[in-house]
């Protein structure tokens, strides 16, 4: 089978074997491949090989794909969201019509809108499943406490996306549900009324409420989510993922030598 990994990103050999990422031979030769060319200028390959060939612990199973699955659902939302934003108009007069336009006239418009809508549902389900996995596996314990905290903030932000996105089609359901949701927020103790006024952009639901929800939904909250996913994944790589709690290391000296896979 041909090796599909570009040369610069192959698994580094043992010291002295001579195909290491930045070996002197390599630096002398003019780079012929694109990956090598970029690598010579960025020095990214040690980082990338470290990322690709880091070990995941024994026993890692399909439950460990739920985090990536959540990430993929978020990417679907980000991409379809950009296309929706090209046609959506966040004004109370035009919003509804622009959604009708997307649904009926724009090429693949209804498909993209449907993907954004069902992608939201999928992401919510996946993020809860991922949280349940890390909960039942005890993965929030030392040394991964901070990653759990970041995760809880991510779940809150994801729910805020659901709340702010629901208003945007500006049909009867979204309008009245949002009024009730804002009134619910306003009944909260201490901060409730202020939070509701901030979300509504005033004491009552007004024209600016829609723009405010739109700005939150497509700029502020996704920006925060992207930054926090970055921090989350940095910690995942840095600390490594847990082994399932029922997998134990029997410390027979023999098994310690099974380093090669």
């Amino acid at each position, binding site marked *: 089978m041909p090796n599909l*990994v570009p040369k610069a990103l192959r698994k580094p050999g043992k010291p002295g074997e001579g195909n290491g990422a930045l070996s002197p031979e390599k630096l002398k030769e003019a780079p012929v491949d694109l990956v090598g060319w970029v690598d010579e200028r960025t020095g990214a390959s040690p980082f990338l090989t470290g990322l*690709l*060939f*880091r*070990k*995941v*612990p024994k026993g*890692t199973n*399909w439950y*460990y794909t739920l985090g*990536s*699955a959540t990430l*993929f659902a978020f990417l*679907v939302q980000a991409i379809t969201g950009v296309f929706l934003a090209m046609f959506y108009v966040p004004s109370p007069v035009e919003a509804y019509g622009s959604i009708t336009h997307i*649904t009926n006239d724009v090429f693949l418009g209804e498909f*993209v809108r*449907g*993907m954004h809508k*069902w*992608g939201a549902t*999928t992401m919510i389900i*996946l993020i809860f499943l991922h949280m*349940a996995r890390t*909960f*039942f*596996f*005890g993965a*929030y*314990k*030392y040394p*991964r*406490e901070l990653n*759990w*905290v970041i995760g*809880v903030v991510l779940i809150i932000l994801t729910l805020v996306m659901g*709340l702010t996105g*629901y208003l945007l089609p*500006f*049909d*009867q359901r979204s309008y*009245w549900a949002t*009024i*009730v949701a804002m*009134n*619910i927020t*306003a*009944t*909260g103790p201490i901060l*409730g009324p202020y939070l509701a006024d901030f979300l509504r952009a005033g004491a*009552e639901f007004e024209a600016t409420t829609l723009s405010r929800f739109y700005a939150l939904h497509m700029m502020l909250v996704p920006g925060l989510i992207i930054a926090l996913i970055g921090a989350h994944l940095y910690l995942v790589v840095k600390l490594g993922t*847990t*082994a399932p709690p*029922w*997998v*134990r*290391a029997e*410390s027979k000296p023999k*098994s*310690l030598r099974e380093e090669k*896979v």
Partner: protein
Amino acid sequence: MDSAAKEAYLREYEVLKKKGKPFFPYAVFKDSVMFMIVVGVIAFMSLMLGAEQGPKADPTTTTYVPRPEWYFFFLFELLRVLKPPELVPVATIGLPTVAMVLLLLLPFYDRNPERHPLRRPVATTAGIMTIIAMAFLTYLGASAGSPTEIELDVAPQYEAGKQVAAQSGCLACHQFGHNGNDGPGPELTHIGSELPAAAIERTLRNPPGIMPSFENLPPEKFNDLVEFLSSLR
């Protein structure tokens, strides 16, 4: 966890990691399969179920169903369970805030070094109970109807107002006779004997708590509505 337990964990983890497999291609393979499933399922649902669009938002019309997205049903159902107005802030913001803080701080109060779910009976039971409670409330929310009919016998001059009430979503939160949902708002079957017409009118313009304002109804419909409510004795 004390420092000995921490060290023991890190040592054991080091061994398990050494015995593991490289991320590429093993984990990458699983993740790629998952990628295709996720995108495939989303595209399939979009093709099969589409994205409907209801009638345009209109503060002055009378047909609407104040329903949140399904993943907020459990919050809305909490409002029905905890109905008295004094408890509404507890249900709406208090309980969810407490739940979120408990969730956020979980690693800091659960200091048991054990990770196996069967050897953490308290945590595992609490987790399963939370899942069951949320699933049950979501189910209640999903099966609560949004009725649009009131089957009360009223004098003919109040029929118009009854129509307005039936189609203005009051039934999502109030009960008239045996129509409508039992909460979060109080039953209105005898509201005319409890509140004078002027107070009802004030409530509709400037409602307490979570109820939306109906100030923007056309004046004629608004008056019909107030007359109908005052006639319920």
